């Protein structure tokens, strides 16, 4: 048993931490989030130059050959620095779909672009009615000769505004919530019939609601088999949840550290507020909440590394714990900062908002607790 990072993993971690420290301080991050595109092209090229965009891809695909531990390390640092650039939608989501279901032609057409930073990706899965049920899909793709025609609407698509390549989940057969009959396509964002409405989010992300009106896509751009996408999607969601939970752990650790620092320096009644025992005990509790979340993250990562499907129950558990403990950590951070915690200027509220979005993405505690119970207590 060993929970240490390899030397390479430590190097990745340190290089992101150094980037955040030198080039991505809070004022920079604020300015980037407030800019027109909500991301920095300069930062994105740096990510490409430093090789971060290549990490989870195999060496045959031109990548670094990293595994889930590497992804965890990167995402945790992204969480600490509150990096708003679309690493998750591009590398983890679009890249993850290509890794899983892309044929050689598709991989060689798209992965080099992800690695060099020219491809910005998105995965359009959510629909107005679908909530957390990935298979609940009304968007259709109709085959005609060697192409498909896509019709429908996807909502709150992460990185939807900036993406130039969008993976779309669409129904090629079956009815609304059938697991069978779903297929995946990669569509150019500027293809005819694609229209986007910007949906800016509280955590700085530029999401989009995307309409597909008779969008033609060549059959070459179908990822995986026709009708068999759900397996790919479920496999992707495992990794996506682990990645987001790693980011959440990064946010939580930073919130705890900043709050601790604040309570040591903020004085009221002639003394640091950190000297009040009522606050001390609650800070002990947020520290425990963080450690517990980190432990379950490690467990999920270890299981996933052995055999992704074996991590399923732990991933449900992890999502439940991140929900509960994440809320506890950001709630206390805001409360203990008093009025300062209620401002947009301070970073505390922004970490909270990122955590809130992570908590709801791919299912919140209510959803995952039910999934957990169904698996663990089924007769």
């Amino acid at each position, binding site marked *: 048993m060993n929970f240490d990072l390899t030397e390479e993993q430590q190097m990745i971690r340190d290089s992101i931490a150094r980037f955040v420290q030198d080039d991505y301080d809070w004022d920079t991050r604020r300015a980037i989030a407030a800019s027109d595109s909500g991301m920095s092209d300069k930062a994105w090229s740096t990510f490409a130059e430093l090789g971060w965009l290549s990490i989870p891809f195999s060496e045959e695909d031109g990548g670094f050959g990293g595994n889930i531990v590497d992804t965890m390390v990167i995402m945790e640092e992204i969480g600490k620095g509150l990096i708003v650039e679309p690493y998750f939608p591009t590398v983890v989501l679009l890249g993850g779909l290509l890794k899983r279901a892309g044929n050689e032609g598709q991989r060689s057409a798209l992965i080099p672009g992800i690695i060099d930073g020219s491809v910005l990706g998105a995965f359009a899965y*959510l629909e*107005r*009615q679908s*909530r*957390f*049920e990935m298979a*609940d899909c009304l968007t259709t793709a109709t085959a005609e000769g060697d192409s498909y025609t896509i019709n429908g*609407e996807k*909502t*709150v698509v992460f990185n939807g505004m900036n993406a130039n390549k969008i993976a779309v989940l669409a129904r090629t057969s079956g009815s609304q*919530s059938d697991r069978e009959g779903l297929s995946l396509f990669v569509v150019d964002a500027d293809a005819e019939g694609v229209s986007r*409405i910007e*949906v*800016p*989010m*509280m*955590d700085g*992300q530029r999401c989009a*609601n995307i309409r597909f009106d008779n969008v033609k896509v060549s059959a070459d751009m179908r990822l995986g088999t026709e009708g068999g996408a759900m397996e790919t999607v479920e496999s992707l969601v495992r990794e996506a949840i682990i990645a987001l939970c790693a980011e959440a752990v990064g946010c939580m650790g930073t919130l705890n550290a900043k709050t601790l620092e604040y309570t040591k320096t903020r*004085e*009221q*009644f*002639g003394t640091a507020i950190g000297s*009040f025992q*009522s*606050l001390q005990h609650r800070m002990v509790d947020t520290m425990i909440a963080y450690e517990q979340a980190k432990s379950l993250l490690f467990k999920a990562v270890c299981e996933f590394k052995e055999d992704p499907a074996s991590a399923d129950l732990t991933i449900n558990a992890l999502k439940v714990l991140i929900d509960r403990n994440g*809320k506890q950590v950001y*709630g206390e951070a*805001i*409360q203990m900062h*008093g*009025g300062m*915690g*209620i*401002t*947009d*200027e301070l970073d505390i*509220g922004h970490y*909270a*908002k990122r955590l*809130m*979005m992570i908590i*709801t*993405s791919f299912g*919140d505690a*209510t*959803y995952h*607790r*039910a999934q957990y119970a169904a698996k663990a207590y089924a007769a």
Partner: protein
Amino acid sequence: MDISFAQEDLAFRDEVRTFFDEQFDDELVSRLKSEDFKEAIVDWQQRLFKKGWIAANWPVEYGGTGWTPTQKYIYESERSARGIPGVIPFGIGMVGPMIYQFGTPEQKEKFLPGILNSEVWWCQGYSEPGAGSDLASLKTKAELDGDHYVINGAKIWTSYAQYADWIFVLVRTSNEGKKQEGITFILVDMKSEGIKVNPIIGIDNEHNLNEVEFNNVRVPVENVVGEVNKGWTVAKALLAHERTGIADVAQSKRNIRLIKEAAAKEINGGRPLIEDPGFQARIADLEIEIMALEFTDLRTIAAMAAGGFPGPESSLLKIKGTELQQATQELRMELAAYYQGVLPKYMSEEDLGHSFGPEARVSYMYGRASTIYGGSNEVQRNIIAKYVLGLE
């Protein structure tokens, strides 16, 4: 032990309902949600003023309603249940009572009418960057120069200062003795030379808060309310007013109702969320606490009706009330799922694909402040520990 309302209370409730039905119209509702907020809320307050219902807590001789505690309770419940905003507290709820309680006849004549008819907008200049929970350590100073005080310093977290015509301020007029002893309560015209208002954008992305700077602001001595150096007595009296009605059980009940309505429409995996046992358990846990708090509130009201005055016990209502408000706001956010993060407040439902996400966000994010302002919940717990439980 009896919870039924008397006949005249039921008649009063009908009158309140009729008034709200007639006066709180759709046009007003949409204006309150728009950029037009200030004009809309003043308009609403003036409708209440015309009806004679603007000042529930004032004595009748100054224009109050003369309502019994039960009537106040009925009024507040009916108001909150409909999502009707409360009267902006700074004039009617705060400075008005200080003026009729501690002010000179001239001050009463000059200020009370504008407060009652909502023509003058007030804000509260208490907190400073270095003086929050420990308010008495405030440093903004006022020095006597002939028949004027000259004020220098800065106030922070001043709600709605951008709209305000006047501000009531706690200033330091002496450094002798205990820190509570050199504080004075003074009224300042926001148009005075040397006042600068700097906006603070909140965690809800709205502009409600401000910093107010005072640079050699000259204020006539007759604007002091109460005695010079005795402002702490006034400030404490004000806090008692601030705490009544703080539990706002009706608001939480309304949120629960909205959650249940929305959860019946929100489908997950082919089933409405309201039928999901996990979600049901979440709502039930909240409803049970709210049910209890409603009776805790009623017990306080009954004690007041019998002639008592809410003492440190009102801290209990503040703590539990705000915690339950936050918990219901949180559940509403969860219900909105991904849409809880949507930033633009006025995005149409057609474009967005969701009806209440942004509204849930604003109320949840701003709601984080309810456990911080009005005496933080930590400070309230300290009060109960010391004055109710006798722990020192």
